[in-house]
């Protein structure tokens, strides 16, 4: 029983990390039809920004709420990078999918290379804030505190994105734009502003994933974003490319499957199990788990 509790909570923590990455990816693809391979770069920028701020920014150390300042710095860096990428690189390439893929793949390789040139290729120890050091006892099992932080952050991002989509005018434009972008424009709405905002929000979620991913793994590496991006793409495909709810369900599913498969079989089989689930979804429900729930599509 205690093993199951441990696997469930750590699986939910991993799923929360996947959701933070995949939600932005899904949001960007759903509205903008942009397959953003540079998403992992925003994650890396968030991770290194947080790591750098924790060491250099006054008041942003691991003591007290200082780590929150470091995370805010990392998220701001990732958001700024995403905004600049949208304005300078993606905007001229709307509707040109081949060029978009080339540009974002190029970025996904260039940013880690740049980070490596500055801080080296070796893993850097990520600062552990006092607030999440140690473990909490749940039904007799000690669970690392940072897993709960990840789950809380994912829930907060889910609620924030849900409120954005359902309660704001920009959210309304996003939901309409998913269905018919040209018609949104024909109503006199500059949909490009929404695109920039959505890209920035996606970048912010990825950067937050980078910052909290550093806690999860204990280190940051230049290629961390690339390896996590693979699972984020799997989550988006399983959950359906335009559904926030589907994204959340798929994130939890992938996180739990990985944890259970790795524990009860052999280490590493969890990744293969996830790929098998992906194949099953593609064979049986090509639009993802939420393909038929079009009315719930929000991003």
């Amino acid at each position, binding site marked *: 029983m205690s093993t199951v509790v441990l696997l469930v909570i750590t699986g939910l923590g991993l799923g929360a990390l996947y959701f933070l990455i995949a939600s932005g990816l899904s949001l960007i693809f759903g509205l903008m039809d942009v397959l953003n391979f540079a998403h992992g770069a925003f994650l890396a920028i968030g991770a290194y920004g947080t790591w750098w701020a924790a060491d250099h920014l006054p008041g942003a150390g691991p003591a007290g709420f200082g780590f929150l300042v470091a995370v805010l710095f990392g998220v701001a860096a990732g958001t700024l990078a995403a905004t600049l990428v949208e304005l300078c690189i993606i905007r001229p390439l709307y509707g040109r999918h081949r060029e978009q893929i080339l540009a974002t793949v190029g970025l996904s390789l260039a940013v880690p290379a740049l980070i490596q040139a500055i801080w080296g290729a070796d893993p850097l120890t990520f600062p552990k804030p006092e607030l999440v050091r140690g473990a909490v006892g749940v039904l007799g099992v000690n669970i690392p505190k940072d897993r709960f932080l990840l789950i809380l952050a994912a829930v907060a991002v889910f609620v924030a994105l849900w409120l954005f989509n359902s309660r704001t005018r920009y959210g309304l434009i996003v939901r309409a734009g998913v*269905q018919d972008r040209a018609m949104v424009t024909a109503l006199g709405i500059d949909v490009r502003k929404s695109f920039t905002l959505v890209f920035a929000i996606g970048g912010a979620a990825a950067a937050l994933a980078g910052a909290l991913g550093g806690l999860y793994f204990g280190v940051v590496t230049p290629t961390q974003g690339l390896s996590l991006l693979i699972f984020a793409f799997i989550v988006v495909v399983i959950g359906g490319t335009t559904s926030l709810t589907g994204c959340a369900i798929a994130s939890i599913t992938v996180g739990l499957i990985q944890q259970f498969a790795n524990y009860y079989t052999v280490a590493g089989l969890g990744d293969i199990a996830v790929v098998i689930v992906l194949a099953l979804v593609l064979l049986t429900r090509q639009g993802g788990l939420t393909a038929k729930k079009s009315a719930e599509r929000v991003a």
Partner: protein
Amino acid sequence: MSAAEPLLEAADLHVWIEGSHILQGVSFSMPDRGVTALMGRNGVGKTTTVKALLGLVPRTGRVVFDGVDITTHPTYTIVSRGIGYVPEERGIFAALTVAENLRLAERHPKPRYELVHELFPELAARASQPAGTLSGGQQQMLAIGRSLLNDNKLLIVDEPTKGLAPRIVREVADAVARAAEQVPVLLVEQNLSLVRRVAGQAVVLDAGRVIHTGSALELLDDADRVRELLGVSRTVTDSSGTTAGAEGRRTA
């Protein structure tokens, strides 16, 4: 803009789509009052002309609206200058509710919900219903209602009665007529009874070119010209006021 100047002027519009030369130099102007009907057989470029005016398809030529050259403006800027657009396929956002569809179209601080709900009471009653679950007629009412929400200088309405049941055609026709009392309308329409009822001027297209401009009534009263320009050899008026031509086309 002086009274003599046209509200909308298109000059030498050309549109190519996937290698086909769809519009081949469309030029016409419409006055700042009344309804101008854009007519022609199926596939002659009526909808493409409307899309070209709004910048929804790449085009060459010149478009002047309300005294301003809008040729190079993006669609959202063109529409924001005071154009309400009801596309042929209605452009309803199926997953959004009726209220959300209307809210999305709000451009002015005081949207005219009273007018919209007076014309189409069903839209108020069905405010929380997903637009995708509305009937075709209700969706058309929503599309027209959305265009009336703002205080526009021009409405562009593309085939509003297409595919609707006769009873709904009357309601939609009434709404178009009511709208035309308040704002100039560019009406793409093959339903000649509606054109006869509301239109002052007619512009007829054929093969991507304007082949006739003039009074709508004079054109419709001339059976030979109607046959020549619109391909209608005889007309029969049914109980709904819509009509069927000899070739099965909805005509006069």
